[in-house]
């Protein structure tokens, strides 16, 4: 469970996030909003890359402010990136191992954990393939495998669906839906693809100008006229 309280992030005079308060208990939560709404900023606060000016974030009751940046992965906060960050001079297995080096293994053999993580995303055949030789979609899957190895609590994905073919997109959906069942982690999904969000997310949080404009079950939220206005730029009918 993610509890965000009064979270404000200032970039100079610009408010990246503006007194955002939300409690996100669902296994897969969507995070949508127009460009500059603060989606990536929120993810960066959770990862620790951005320090909040005011406010706190708690995950499973633990305040993130007290967890050092490099210990967040071990605590269980993982992410994939908008621009993929697969290490090209390591194999797919090596990429997963590089993260496993720094997170709890629960005393299970490392090899099993690595194969399980790559198996979960369907990348076992590429175990020994160098990152440089993987295609864009395979790289995305390796990132997900990295994010799900070794007891994660929260997996955040920044636009994982961008530029995928129909087949890939369908596989990605099943992978995203399976993350909670596979490793127990909560998923926070940022994407502009409304189809992907409605297919995978139980609940959705909508941001605009750093503030929450809606939160609730995905279908209800996406039908909300204020959300449609923020997204499509349609002016609300004035009475």
């Amino acid at each position, binding site marked *: 469970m993610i509890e965000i309280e009064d979270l404000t992030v200032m970039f100079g005079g610009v408010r990246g996030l503006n007194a955002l308060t939300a409690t996100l208990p669902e296994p897969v939560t969507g995070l949508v909003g127009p460009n500059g709404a603060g989606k990536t900023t929120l993810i960066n606060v959770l990862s620790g890359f951005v320090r909040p000016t005011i406010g706190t974030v708690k995950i499973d009751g633990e305040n993130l402010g007290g967890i050092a940046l490099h210990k967040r992965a071990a605590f269980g906060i993982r992410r994939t990136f908008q621009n993929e960050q697969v290490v090209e001079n390591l194999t797919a297995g*090596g990429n997963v191992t590089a993260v496993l080096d720094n997170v709890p293994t629960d005393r299970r053999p490392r090899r099993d954990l690595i194969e399980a993580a790559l198996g979960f995303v369907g990348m076992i055949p590429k175990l020994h393939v160098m990152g440089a030789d993987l295609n864009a979609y395979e790289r995305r899957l390796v990132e997900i495998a990295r994010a799900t190895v070794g007891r994660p609590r929260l997996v955040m994905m920044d636009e994982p669906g961008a530029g995928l073919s129909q087949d890939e997109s369908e596989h990605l959906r099943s992978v995203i839906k399976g993350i909670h069942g596979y490793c127990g982690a909560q998923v926070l999904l940022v994407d502009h693809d409304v189809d992907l969000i409605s297919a995978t997310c139980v609940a959705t949080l909508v941001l605009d100008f750093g503030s929450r404009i809606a939160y609730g079950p995905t279908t209800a939220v996406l039908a909300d006229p204020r959300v449609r206005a923020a997204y499509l730029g349609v002016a609300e009918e004035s009475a």
Partner: protein
Amino acid sequence: MSDVTDETLTYSLPVDSRKVRLKWLMTALVAVGAVYVLSDAMSNYWLRTFISAAALAIGSLSVSVLFAQLGMVSLAQFALLGVGGWFALRVSHGLGVPFELAILAGGVAAAAFGLVVGLPALRMRGLYLAIITLMMAGAIQVLISAFGFPDGGAGILGKSTGARVMMARPFLAQTDEAYFRYVAVVLVLCYGLVLLHVRGRPGRAWAMIRRSEVCALAGGVHIVAYKVWAFALAGFLAGVAGGLLAGGVGQLDGSAFPASQSIMLFALTIVGGAYSWMGPLIAGLMLRAFPALLNDFHVDGNIATIVFGAGLLHALMTAPKGIAGQLQDAAKALRAKFPGKPGAAR
């Protein structure tokens, strides 16, 4: 991708591991044979040249650890050779310890200096890091040329007023032939040390850092610790190289470690090929054997510098993987042209 069947779950190594092991075993045997035969066949001039070349290959290895693994440019590594040489000489003369301990002391001292050199790297990269490390190389150059190298005298600096005392060589390797073999063994050990790092946890953490710092942070890599570790390892290698140089000649010249040599070492590591195991060997040979070869032909050895400059331009423009990369590409092309047996050409 969506239907993962049982067949796709079975996988195999892309290369037969037994064949690979055999290939490396053959390479190792040939190398051992070459070192043994060469050291007997060479004149003293060439023996000493190759001793220096092998020691400098270790120095180049130290540059390549930082550059190839972390993408960091340190222009202070040759100065660290001087630091390692200084401490090795001091410990050897002052305490009369076995050569191995003196070398280790040089390595550890240079590792400590390397750490200091690496501190700016925690905040900077690229050009700024290069400039800062070059300034540190300049500072070390000033210290070394002011105080000189210990040569058997008393006091902290160990400068003798009378005859210069030579550094004691290892018990096992008193002659030039034996010392060359000794240095070759140390070179192999240093490669082993680096390989151990690269294949292990530090290598993976370095690879993540090199990809990008956000990638490393998201993966829980302690960036500061692993960068510091890399600089300490690189410093250690440079220090060992400096100690070996001191043992080869018996003493070191205070003017032999200018900051410009650090740039040269870095440049030639790029020309040789920082990403390949062959690169540092080629760099070592270019630094010492190539000028010696020119001298042998009665050509001014300084012409080598011009050749190196051209080589660097060539490497930067057309061969980012250096000579080593070109050799490997050439070997691949040859294998494709003359497939010895089916399956050999991949």
